[in-house]
């Protein structure tokens, strides 16, 4: 057993629902107890879909347990096929049905439907949501796609976008436009938007663009083996990666044109003097492996941040994430326990967090600005406006996203100059974080902010004592670098075996760490 409050990923059957909901003309029958329909609201509320996910739940109850549940499953399949008339039926079981061993796959295959029936193996007690999506899409592809003549015009498939995917809607639009600029047609985009008929046509494309390895790598590998289609390895997030992606496409299709960069603004924005203050800002990245790895490159090479730490929650990609971290001279954090993520962030005291909605809350708690770069996300990250993260417009979006949470350069400068001013004192906090302005207590220091307590109870006890004068001096340092200063001074003191920190220690440490 593992105690958990927050989970980065849902169970694998939610991954299967993401695939089914993204597609057209398929229906998923899930052998599942009453209550599992909660997953519907992820799609109707968070993604704001205007139709019900194409999923029928058998909704068995305690009184059905026994032979009855198998019957219930058959009836649900018959009703679903009759009512929704899908071109293909997917069947699977949620965690509870996995325990009662009704074998949905076997039952559905013997029911004699005249449409393809695709059984899904969803091991709920070992795997998670991304696996479920990858597996569902792989099984659909395997069941429906066949080798066929390549199209006359150069074409590719776009693989990976699903329901409830972080910015999938706009990434697809952006990359399809980029490919069109290069003279490459999109044959099929799948699973999102595709029907079973279109999946059957996958083989017509000359190659595959794999946008999201988490949800479609198995299918891409299958297509390579069975349909002879190569697939792109670079995920086009950021300017460098997008250019690499373009080169990769040109290597696959030597005639492909170079797309226009006329609307690309990130490089100039980043080079302009207002961005100088971004240099060396320490960022921590966490999320799914694909987004973290791509964003690390954007953060370091395109915006000029220092990557202080990175990690991912999906263990399937632990190896490449570790390798990348090594290149950056840091150690990767591979965990699905948000308390470990919080502890690492606290230890590193970065100036910016790039993460999921969980990291956004950790950032809020620790007073560190944060931008969201990866699922899981809440409703605000399924925006109405066009906001891809891929391609050249995606790069523009990323510049804004990564820079906005930080205090603007001029603002930072003024805050430092006027930090003792009555309106800019510490307790007032940054204006854009929603903090209420608090009048400064003139009689000495206010109460020390209490460190939040995680349920793990892992409180970090300070082994070094801050003398009052040093503590007061520390408070004069702007709040947005104070965490870093505190951490540096403490490790400086500990390395030298000092039990106390004086004002001198503080400045010695500052000099020591100065570059």
């Amino acid at each position: 057993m593992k105690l958990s409050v927050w989970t980065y990923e849902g169970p694998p059957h939610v991954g299967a629902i993401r695939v089914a909901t993204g597609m057209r003309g398929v229906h998923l029958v899930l052998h599942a107890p009453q209550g599992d329909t909660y997953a519907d609201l992820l799609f109707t509320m968070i993604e704001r879909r205007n139709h019900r996910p194409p999923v029928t739940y058998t909704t068995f109850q305690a009184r059905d347990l026994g032979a009855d549940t198998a019957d219930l499953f058959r009836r649900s399949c018959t009703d679903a096929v009759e009512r929704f008339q899908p071109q293909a039926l997917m069947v699977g079981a949620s965690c509870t049905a996995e325990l009662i061993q009704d074998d949905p796959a076997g039952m559905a295959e013997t029911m004699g439907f005249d449409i393809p029936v695709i059984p899904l193996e969803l091991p709920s007690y070992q795997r998670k949501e991304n696996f479920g999506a990858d597996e569902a899409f792989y099984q659909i592809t395997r069941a429906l796609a066949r080798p066929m003549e390549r199209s006359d015009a150069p074409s590719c498939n776009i693989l990976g976008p699903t329901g409830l995917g972080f910015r999938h809607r706009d990434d697809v639009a952006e990359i399809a436009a980029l490919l069109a600029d290069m003279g490459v047609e999109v044959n099929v985009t799948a699973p999102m938007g595709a029907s079973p008929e279109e999946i059957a046509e996958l083989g017509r494309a000359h190659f595959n663009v794999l946008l999201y390895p988490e949800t479609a790598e198995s299918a891409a590998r299958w297509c390579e083996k069975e349909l002879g289609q190569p697939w792109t390895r670079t995920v086009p997030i950021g300017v460098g990666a997008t250019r690499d992606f373009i080169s990769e496409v040109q290597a696959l299709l030597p005639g492909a044109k170079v797309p226009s960069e006329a609307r690309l603004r990130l490089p100039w924005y980043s080079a302009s003097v207002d961005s100088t203050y971004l240099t060396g800002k320490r960022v921590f990245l966490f999320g799914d492996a694909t987004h973290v790895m791509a964003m690390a490159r954007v953060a370091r090479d395109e915006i000029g941040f220092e990557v202080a730490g990175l990690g991912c929650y999906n263990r399937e990609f632990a190896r490449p994430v570790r390798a990348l971290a090594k290149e950056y001279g840091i150690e990767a954090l591979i965990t699905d326990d948000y308390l470990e993520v919080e502890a690492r962030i606290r230890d590193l005291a970065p100036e910016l967090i790039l993460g999921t909605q969980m990291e956004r809350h950790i950032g809020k708690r620790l007073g560190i600005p944060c931008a969201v770069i990866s699922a899981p996300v809440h409703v605000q990250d399924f925006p109405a406006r066009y906001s891809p993260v891929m391609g050249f417009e995606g790069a523009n979006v990323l510049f804004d996203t990564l820079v906005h949470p930080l205090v603007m350069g001029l603002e930072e400068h003024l805050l430092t100059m006027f930090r003792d001013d009555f309106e800019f004192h510490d307790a007032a906090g940054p204006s854009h974080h929603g903090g209420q302005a608090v009048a400064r207590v003139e009689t000495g220091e206010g109460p020390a902010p209490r460190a939040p307590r995680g349920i793990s109870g892992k409180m970090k006890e300070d082994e070094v004592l801050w003398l009052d004068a040093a503590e007061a001096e520390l408070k004069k340092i702007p709040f947005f670098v104070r965490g870093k200063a505190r951490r540096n001074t403490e490790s400086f003191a500990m390395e030298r075996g000092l039990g106390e920190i004086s004002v001198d220690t503080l400045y010695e440490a500052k000099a020591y760490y100065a570059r």
Partner: protein
Amino acid sequence: MTEMPHINSGGCVDQPILRERGQHEVFCGLTSIIWLHRKMQDAFFLVVGSRTCAHLLQSAAGVMIFAEPRFATAILEETDLAGLADAQDELDREVARLLARRPDIRQLFLVGSCPSEVIKLDLARAAERLTEAHAPHVRVLSWSGSGIETTFTEGEDACLAAMVPGLPRGDSSNLLVVGALPDVVEDQARRLLADLGIAQVDWLPARRSDAAPQVGPNTRFILSQPFLGDTYAALERRGARPIAAPMPFGEEGTTAWLASIAQEFDIGPEHFARVTEAPRERARAAVARATETLAGKRIFFFPDSQLEIPLARFLARECAMEPVEVGSPFIHRQITAPDLALVPEGTPLSEGQDVDLQLDRLRAAAPDLTVCGLGLANPLEAEGLTTKWAIELVFTPVHFYEQAGDLAELFARPLRRKAALHLSPNTPGSARGWPLAGQPS
């Protein structure tokens, strides 16, 4: 004294109910934890279940999940399924770790889920063993919030019913109000009951475990929520006597609820009128404003919380709405009788659900307002129907006089919004050119 209608006959009391089985679009009982843990301030709810259970809780709890909530899921792993003795040891270990980290916890609830029920993990025995191990500091109880046994609010029933056998015995003639209410609402009810002159009023659940109510043969209890059938039975088994009443929604519901208590405690009609007159007037005035929007509108309830029947009663009688179908996940005839008696005769009632068939009936009825869950609301809006999502009715303070206006307003707001956006109530979303989310255009 206010005129009391006959509460065990008339209306829909003897009406046949459409009973359906099929796909239920409902939450499981685990969802109750989200409001129960706010109410019981020294309790921790440990779900023994799967990743699905944890995912459900975080999806339903929304931002609450980030506020160090006093609930968590012990996620069963492959190894737990292999040998059951193992699972008990694992549970002991996780509980010990949890209690060491949260020394403020006095009550620990082991909450069963579908997986734990299907593998027949004996949580009752585990609770006994753990109570011994952690006595007297912590008391460990167990109940099931599994979807195979409970629907949404029935989780609260299972939890309260599990608490009843352990309540201290007492001989005082107290009034026990049963059902978790928001603190502000509970305090209003406390004041009203005190003004009526009822000496000892206790609450189940209490805010803290050291305030647990006494139960005995002189205890009279009244439900503040309709979904508490098992708790009702458990209290009767302890010798307590129930007071039948409609649920305290709206001015009429609250008055009838209070009047049933007043009758039981021999409180004179003049005194009753004096205490209730001012708040009744306020409630009527507040409801009247929303009624301008609601009067004459037809309303359809999907099953969700068992609050549907009392709410339909309130909307029909105080807001002049016409219920066209009232669906409930479960209808407890005895408990709902006083409300059923006041629901307009001939209102179609349904219990359980086959969601596709019910959607067919909904489309045929084309009501002005549909009360349904979040999985259905946006799809129905896109079809041109106006919806009120039901979960809000459980989380928001809606009971008693001061909330009567807010309660009516919850139903009026979607209709007023349609008008504000100049949307004709019957144009489907597709005809308005609403795009399909997630699809590249």
